[in-house]
C-alpha cells in the first residue's frame, strides 16, 4: 500500500514532470520561417505544419505480412505477380505492417466481405488510387504523401500533396451536404485540445487502402486529432456505415510533422500521369 505522503510526493513529481514537459513544448526551437508557437491566440493547439503518416496503412489497414505484389495470377506452384506488375520487382512488393485497426478486424457484413475479396483480386482495375482519383477520408491522411494543415483563428484547411486534394473544415456546421463528393463534407469542433471532425456526404467510390477495403455512401467518419507535443498528432477515425459494417470500427495512428525548415508540399498532380493509362487507347497513333 502506498502511504498518503508517498502519494503526495508522486503527485508532485508527476505534476512537475508535466509542467517541465509543457515548458519544453512551448520553448521548442524555431522551425519554418518563424518560431512555431504551441498555441494560437485563441488558445487552440497549433495544427499548422506539414504532416505525414509513417506506416503501411495505405497497403492494408489491417496487420499484414509482406507479399510479392499487389496483383497476382495463379502460378504453377504459388500465386505469382500478375503480368502488368512483374517488371516492378521488389519495388512492386508490399511491405509488412502492424495494422491500424483497433481489434485488427473490419466488421464487414457478409456481402461486403465478399466484395472486399473481389476488390483485392481485381485490384488493378478497381483501386481508385491507381487512376489518381481523390482519395476520400480517412485514406487521404495516410497516403505516402504529406499534407499541409493551415490553421488560423478563422479556418482549418487541409491541402494534400496527392492529386491536390483539399478539405475545408467547416467550423460552423453547414447542414446536410446537398450532393455526395469524393472528399466529403467536414465539420469540425474542439473538445479541449482535440479537434473533432465529422465527415459526411462521401460517395461510395473511395477505398480505405490498396487491399480493397471499401464502404458505401452511407459512411460517416468521426476523426479526432490530438496533439502530443509540437511535432506529433494522434489521429483516430471512427467509421460508421450500416450499409457495409455490422458495427462502427476505429483506426488509430500517429501523424508526424516535417521539421525540416525547408519542408513544403511538392506538387503531385497525378491526373497527368494517368492519361496514358486512361486515354492511351484513344490516341491517333501509339508512337
Amino acid at each position, binding site marked *: 500500500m502506498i502511504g498518503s505522503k508517498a502519494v503526495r510526493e508522486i503527485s508532485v513529481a508527476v505534476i512537475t514532470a508535466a509542467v517541465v514537459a509543457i515548458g519544453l513544448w512551448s520553448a521548442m526551437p524555431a522551425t*519554418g520561417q518563424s518560431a512555431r508557437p504551441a498555441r494560437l491566440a485563441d488558445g487552440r493547439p497549433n495544427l499548422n505544419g506539414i504532416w505525414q503518416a509513417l506506416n503501411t496503412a495505405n497497403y492494408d489497414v489491417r496487420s499484414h505480412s509482406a507479399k510479392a505484389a499487389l496483383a497476382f495470377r495463379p502460378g504453377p506452384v504459388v500465386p505469382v505477380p500478375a503480368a502488368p506488375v512483374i517488371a516492378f520487382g521488389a519495388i512492386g512488393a508490399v511491405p509488412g505492417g502492424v495494422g491500424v485497426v483497433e481489434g485488427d478486424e473490419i466488421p464487414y457484413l457478409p456481402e461486403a466481405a465478399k466484395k472486399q475479396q473481389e476488390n483485392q483480386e481485381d485490384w488493378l482495375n478497381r483501386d481508385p488510387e491507381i487512376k489518381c*482519383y481523390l482519395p476520400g477520408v480517412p485514406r487521404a491522411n495516410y497516403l505516402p504523401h504529406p499534407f499541409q494543415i493551415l490553421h*488560423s*483563428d478563422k479556418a482549418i484547411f487541409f491541402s494534400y500533396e496527392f492529386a491536390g486534394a*483539399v478539405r475545408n473544415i467547416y467550423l460552423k456546421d453547414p447542414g446536410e451536404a446537398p450532393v455526395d*463528393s469524393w*472528399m466529403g463534407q467536414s465539420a469540425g469542433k474542439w473538445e479541449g485540445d482535440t479537434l473533432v471532425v465529422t465527415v459526411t456526404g462521401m460517395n461510395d467510390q473511395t477505398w480505405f487502402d490498396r487491399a480493397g477495403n471499401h464502404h458505401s455512401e452511407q459512411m460517416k467518419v468521426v476523426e479526432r486529432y490530438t496533439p502530443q507535443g509540437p511535432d506529433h498528432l494522434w489521429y483516430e477515425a471512427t467509421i460508421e456505415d450500416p450499409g457495409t459494417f455490422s458495427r462502427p470500427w476505429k483506426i488509430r495512428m500517429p501523424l508526424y510533422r516535417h521539421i525540416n525548415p525547408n519542408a513544403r508540399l511538392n506538387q503531385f498532380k497525378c*491526373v497527368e500521369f494517368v492519361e496514358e493509362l*486512361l486515354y492511351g487507347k484513344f490516341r491517333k497513333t501509339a508512337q
Partner: protein
Amino acid sequence: MAFTQRSGIKVLAGAVAAAGLASLALVTLQGQAPAGIAKPWTMPRTADGKPDLQGTWSNATITPLERPQGVSNLVLSEAEAAKMEKATADRVERLNQDSDPNRPAPPQGGDGSTGAAGNVGGYNNFWLDPGERVAVVDGQFRSSLIIDPPDGRLPATTPEARARTQARLKMMAGRGQYDHPEFRPLAERCLLSFGPTTPLIPNYFYNNNLQIVQTPDHVMILMEMVHDARIVRIGGTHVPKHIRPWMGDSIGHWEGDTLVVDTTNFPLQQPFRGSAENLHVIERFRRVDANTINYRFTVEDPTTFARPFTGEIPFRATDELIYEYACHEGNYALSNVLSGARNEEKRLGTKK
C-alpha cells in the same frame, strides 16, 4: 489610393480578436449600410497584426478583362454601368423563359451558335453564373479589368514571342488537335481550370469563387476550380528553376497593409497569352472594407510582352459555399472528345 498605413499596431489579445471577429461577421452578413449612415469600419486583423484577408470571395464580374473596342475611358458613368447590368439581367430573364415542348430536334449541320457553344448550342443558360455586376474599384465603375496600358488592352507581343508561336505551329503541321490527350487544353484534361489561377482573373462562366486562409507563415488561396490550393510562403524564396508547378511558385510579403505575392516558375506547357518560361506575376491584395478586397495584378515577361500590364479586380465577400470540383473523376468529356475523333475518322474515312 486611399488607405491608412497602420504601423505599430499592438497584437490583439485573444478575447479582443474574437470580438473583432464577431463584429466583422455581423457587418459581412448585413451587407452594405444604407446611404448616409456611414458605419465606421476598422481593418480586421489577425493575431499577428496583419490585415485579415480570410473568407470566401467571388471575383465574378461582367466587366471584361480588356476594354471593348470603342470604349476609351476606364471609368464608366453610373448610368452606363446600370445599363450593362440591366442588359445582363434581361438576357438571363429571356433565356429562362419556357421552351416550346413541341420543339423539334435542332438543325442538321449545327444551330449556328458560336464561341464556346460550338455550333451545337452548348447547354442551357441556367448552368452558367458569370457574374451580374460591373467591377467597382475605389468607387469607380470600370470598363475593363486592365488599367495599364491606359487603353485597357493587352500590350503587343514581342517578335521573339511571335517566332515561338510560329515554331509551335510548324511542329503541329500534319497533326490534329484531337490526336492525343496532350494536345487538348489543360482545362479539358482537368489539370487546371479554364481561366488562369495566377493571376486570379474571373473566367466569365461559373464557379468564380475563392477561399483565403491566412497564417503568419502562409496564405492559402483556394480556387473552386479545379480545387486548386495555391499556398504562398510568406518570407520564402523561390524554388529552383527546373521545378515548375502548374500554378507557378508563389512567395509573399507584407508592405504595410498590402499583401504582395510574387509568382514565377510557371509550367512551359500552357503559356498565359504566349508567356511561360519567363512569366512573372505580382499580385497585391488590399482589404478596403468589410466586403471587399482590392486585387491588383501585374504581368511581366519582356520576352513575350512589349511592356508589363496591370489589372484590378474587386473580390466581393460571399457567404455562399465552395463545393468540391472533382474534375478528373467525372471527366467523360475528354474521352468523348478523343473517342469521337477516332470514331469520326473511321466513319468518314478521313486520314487526318
